[in-house]
Each structure stands twice: as C-alpha cells, then as structure tokens.
C-alpha cells in the first residue's frame, strides 16, 4: 500500500479490513446457527400442535370432529398465524381452524398414512407459512379405520422478525466493537508511535540547526536508526572538516611555492630581464587567482548545518569589524553595525563568515570613510546589507562584478574573487545577491540566504 503514507492510517486501515472480514464471517455463522435453531424450535412447535390436534379429535359415533374446547387458542383467533385442518382420505376437510376465517387451508393434498413432512408454503392471501402434515390411519372403536391427515401451518413472520432483530443486534454489537477497537487502537498507536514522533521532531530540529544530535532513550526497534542517524550526522561533520583541512593543506602547498616564486622574481630585478619578469609575474598572478578562486569555491559547502547550532550573526560581524578596523587602520573607516539580536544563520559558520567578510572587506575597500552593515532574520531567511559611501556601482559594473576574478576597480589592490565567492556561496544557500544604492551614497550589496536543506 504505497499510497497510504501514514503508519497510523496503515494500521487502522488494515485492522479495519481484518475486523470487517472477521465479523462478516462470524455474522454469517451466527446468523445461520440462529436460523437453524429457530427452524428447529418452530418444527418442534408444529409437531406439538399436531399432537395436540390429534388429542383433541373426538371420534364418538364413528364421526370425526374437533371440539373447540380442547384446541390451542391460537387456532381459534382470526389471522393468528396458526392454522390447522383435518382431512380424511376422500379429500374432504373434516375440520379447518377458525383462524382461517373461512378460507381453505392453503394445502389440500393428503399425506400418506404413516408419513409426515414439513412443507414451505407461499400462498396468496397468507403470510409465508411452514406446514406440518402428518398422515395416519384412524381406528374407530367400532373397528373401522380411515386414513386421515392432520395439518398445522405456522406463519414465518414472527420468526423472520426475530431473525431480523437478531441481525440488528449482531450488527450493532459488531459495529460497536469495531469502533471501540479502532479508538483503542488509535490511542495505542499514539502511544506506540510516540518515540517515532520524537525521532521525527528531533531530526527536524537537527535539520533546522536547533539541535546538535538525537538524544534520549529510544525503544530497541528504532534505537539502531537513531544511532545510525547520529553516526551519519557525526560522519558528515567530520567529513566536512577533513575536506576543509585537505583544502587548507592544498592551499598551503600550492600558494607557498607561488609566494616563493614571486618573491624570488622581485629579488633579482635587472633592466634586461624586466619584461620577462613582468610577464612571469602576470602569469603567477593569474595562477594564484585561479587557485584561490577554486579553493574558496570548493570550501563553500552550502553545508546543511546538520548538527550545528544556528549561527548568531552579531559576533561574526563584530569580529570582522575588528579585523577590518585593524587592517584598514590608516583609512580610519567608521563602520556602523545594525545587526538584530535575533539575526541567525542556519548553515555553516564558515560560509557565513566568508560572505560577510568579503562584503565588508569590499565596503572598507571602496568606501571613502563610512560603511554600514545591517542584518536581520525572518523565519525563512537571513537578510544582510553592506553599504558604503564610495562612488557606487553602475549597472554595467554590477553585471560584470560577479564574474569570476573581475574587479570593479582594478586600481584598488585586493582579490577580485571575493564577490564571486559571495555569489557562489549565496547560490548554494538558494539565496540572492543584489546591488543597490546605499543611503550613505555608495553601493549597497544585499544578500538574502535561505535556511539550508537537509543533507
């Protein structure tokens, strides 16, 4: 049942199906048994009635008659549903009960003497009947004998009604039991599924970065799952950190020789070798740009933040501000920070530091004297703006700005790959990067980051 997603629905559905099948079968069996017992009882009654009728017959004077005084009162009451008749072998009815109200007894053939049988009758003017016919040879005291048939018919209506009533009760009980069982089952499921619910909630919290790992005691059936998830989270974290360490080592082992080459080139400058050295320097710079860009790009993981706490933005901005204030000390930049206390990032802290660092560095680099950093969170996104009072960014520049390695102003030294890295990182978090005009007069870069997805 791939369509039924919920475990609870599955259990309820299948238990309902099982109960319906079980109760239907039980119902049929009980119904048949009840009918059989009703039939049995009715036939007993028919036999007793016939015996009563036989006992009531008076054969005084060689004539058969049925004095009413000895009869079952049901035979005397009009349309009582109990009918009787006495036939002799010449076909004539010696007696018919008053309950027939003058109609003929609905069966007129005779039973063979010594024979008896039950007969179902469906005759117009009568309810469905069952008749009992008993043929016997009546011996008069004179020694004469004649074949007679005693017949009693009983209406099936009261029996059918009892059968129907029995069915109603049966169905009522079964329905009641089924509903009660489903309610009990549902409650039981809630209780049984509680640990799964908790697991699901914790996974969601881990995903949202509100929880580092799954905790608490889980039942033996899912403890393996919980442990495996924890292992997965842990592995993911360690894999990420190993990956980054590898990148760091790679950066070190690629860039130190590059640095050595550049330094060596600068050391031995002669007039004659200058053009060649300049060309080499340019090549080295290009190599460096590519290596830097690829390494920083590879480092931006867009990691889910699985198993990490939400990252508060304010301390990172403060750290970066202090760093940049030191680095751009001589420029005496006034940087105003307006970060909402609730501004958090659900993702990798390194990625956030990279985005903020590049944006703020950009601001410090291109401003005249002032930079403004703001950040606030909505439940779904983190919105960051970095504005400055520099000359701003034109639409053309904005278009080329985010291409790899492009600088808006080639005259300011620095890595033009910063904003390209910002854009790549923002893409990983399904975010947006926009260029606008800051109220300080220069450019404003606005980044919106969505929360990271699971795994």
């Amino acid at each position, binding site marked *: 049942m791939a369509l039924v997603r919920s475990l609870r629905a599955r259990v309820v559905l299948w238990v309902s199906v099982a109960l319906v099948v079980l109760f239907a079968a039980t119902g049929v069996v009980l119904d048949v048994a009840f009918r059989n017992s009703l039939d049995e009882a009715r036939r007993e009654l028919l036999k007793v009635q016939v015996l009563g009728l036989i006992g009531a017959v008076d054969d005084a004077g060689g004539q058969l008659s049925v004095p009413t005084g000895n009869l079952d009162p049901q035979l005397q009451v009009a349309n009582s549903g109990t009918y009787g008749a006495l036939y002799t072998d010449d076909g004539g009815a010696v007696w018919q009960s008053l309950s027939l109200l003058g109609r003929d007894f609905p069966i007129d053939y005779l039973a063979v003497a010594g024979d008896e049988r039950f007969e179902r009758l469906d005759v117009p003017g009568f309810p469905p009947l069952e008749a009992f016919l008993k043929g016997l040879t009546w011996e008069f005291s004179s020694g004469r004998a004649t074949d007679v048939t005693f017949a009693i018919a009983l209406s099936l209506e009261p029996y059918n009604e009892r059968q129907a009533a029995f069915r109603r009760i049966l169905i009522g009980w079964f329905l009641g039991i089924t509903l009660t069982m489903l309610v009990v089952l549902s409650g039981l499921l809630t209780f049984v599924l509680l640990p799964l619910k908790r697991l699901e909630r914790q996974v969601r919290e881990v995903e949202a970065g509100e929880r580092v790992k799954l905790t608490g005691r889980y039942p033996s059936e899912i403890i393996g799952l919980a442990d495996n998830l924890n292992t997965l989270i842990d592995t993911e974290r360690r894999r990420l950190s190993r990956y980054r360490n590898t990148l760091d080592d790679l950066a070190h082992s690629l860039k130190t020789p590059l640095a*050595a080459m550049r330094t060596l080139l*600068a050391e031995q400058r002669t007039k004659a070798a200058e053009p060649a050295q300049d060309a080499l320097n340019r090549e080295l710079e290009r190599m460096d740009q590519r290596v830097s860009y690829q390494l920083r790009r590879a480092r931006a993981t867009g990691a889910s933040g699985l198993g990490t706490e939400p990252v508060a933005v304010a301390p990172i901005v403060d750290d970066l501000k202090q760093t940049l204030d030191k680095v751009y000390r001589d420029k005496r930049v006034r940087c105003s920070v307006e970060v909402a206390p609730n501004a958090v990032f659900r993702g990798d802290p390194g990625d956030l*530091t990279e985005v903020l660092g590049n944006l703020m560095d950009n601001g410090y680099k291109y401003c005249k004297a002032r930079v403004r950093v703001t950040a606030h969170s909505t439940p779904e996104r983190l919105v960051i703006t970095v504005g400055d009072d520099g000359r701003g960014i034109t639409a053309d520049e904005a278009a080329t700005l985010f291409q790899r390695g492009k600088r808006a102003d080639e005259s300011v030294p620095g890595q033009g790959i910063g904003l390209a890295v910002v854009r790549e990182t923002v893409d990983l978090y399904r975010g947006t990067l926009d260029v606008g005009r800051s109220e300080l007069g220069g450019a404003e870069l606005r980044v919106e980051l969505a929360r990271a997805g699971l795994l």
Partner: protein
Amino acid sequence: MRLLLVEDDPNLSRSLAAQLEQAGYSVEKSTDGREGLYYAREYPVDLAIVDLGLPSMSGVELIKQLRADGKEYPILVLTARDRWQDKVEALKLGADDYVVKPFNVEELLARVDALLRRAGGWAQSELVCGPITLDTRTQEVKVNAAKLELTSFEYKLLEYLMLHAGEVLSKTQITEALYSEDFERDSNVIEVFIGRLRRKLDPENSYKPIETLRGRGYRLAAERGAPDSD
C-alpha cells in the same frame, strides 16, 4: 629595525629576508614554530613576520605564546589560507595584520613599514619631529623644508630614532636594531654615525635634535610634530 621571519619554505624565507635586509631591516630567520618562539623570546625584536602553516608549532600557537609572554611588538601574518575565519582568528589572537600568499613584496614592505610606524605611535607615513620631516614611504628627509641627503645607514638610524622619538635608546639597542646578528659590534660605530647625523641635521648646532644621556644612550629630543591619535 630587527625583524623576525618565521617561514618554513627555504626559498621564500631566504629571498624575502634578502629583500627585507635590502630595505634596511636586520632579519632573523627561523624555519619552524618552536625555533621561532625561541628567537622571539631570546632576542629583541621590533616586528615578527609569521607564517601560519609552520611545522612543529602552528603560527597561531606561536602568536598566542608570544602575546601570553607579554611581547607587544607588531606581528604580521603570512597565510596561504585566505578564508576570513583564519584572518579573524589570527588577528583576534594578537596578530596586527595579514598578507595572503602569494604576496607582492612591495606590498609586504609597505605593511611592515606601516606596522612599525604605528608601533612607534605614528599614524602617518610622514614622521615629523620639530623641523625634521621623514617620509617612510619615499625615504625622504627634510629639515625646515630643505631636502637632506643621507646615506642608507644614516637614514635607518634617523628613522629608528624618530620612530622612538622621546624614548631613551641604548647603544646596544640601536646596534641590534640596525645590524644583523653576525655583525661585529662596536659601539663606537654608533657614536660616529650619531655624530654625523647631528652635523647633517643641525649644521649650526642651534636646536640639538639628538641628546646624549651619559651611560644610558641617546634620545631624539625634538618634539613630535604629528602625534598619533590612535
């Protein structure tokens, strides 16, 4: 000015040291963190250049130790990692600036110069003491707006005195700052150069820019014209 360079790549270390020396600094080289820490503790150093990816002891650990020891001279970090977390961490631990590899040597020299200037309490690259003006960037010296021709060593000596204007500097201090370790020390040399500098700065012997404090050393007495507000 005595610099400590802690860098494990031999080519980079040698070549960078050569260029720093060419720029007038005396340079101690060290190729691993522990050795660097030893030098930094045992020798007077005006500025340290520390690579973050060092064998035996990371640059970060080295910086932490130096600051824990109370060493206050500027530290310039060389790093191959250009991620902001590393930069932030290095500066938080007490580094003063960073240069990402592969760097431009001229830019590194400018950073070193700026750090030393700031450590001396100067905010601008132009140092002014009374009538003397020294531009650390162009290495030009003027007295009362008249340009002064100095030899390289004279310039270094004046720069050192001006960076520490108002402080008493012993002959040993000056020698160590201006010469590499292997230089044969002779305190008379400093006396000779101080004498020459005095004659060039103040030929009329009118304002006596450099004081001699008997038994203690020298002091640039002229008042700082552009005090730092940092």
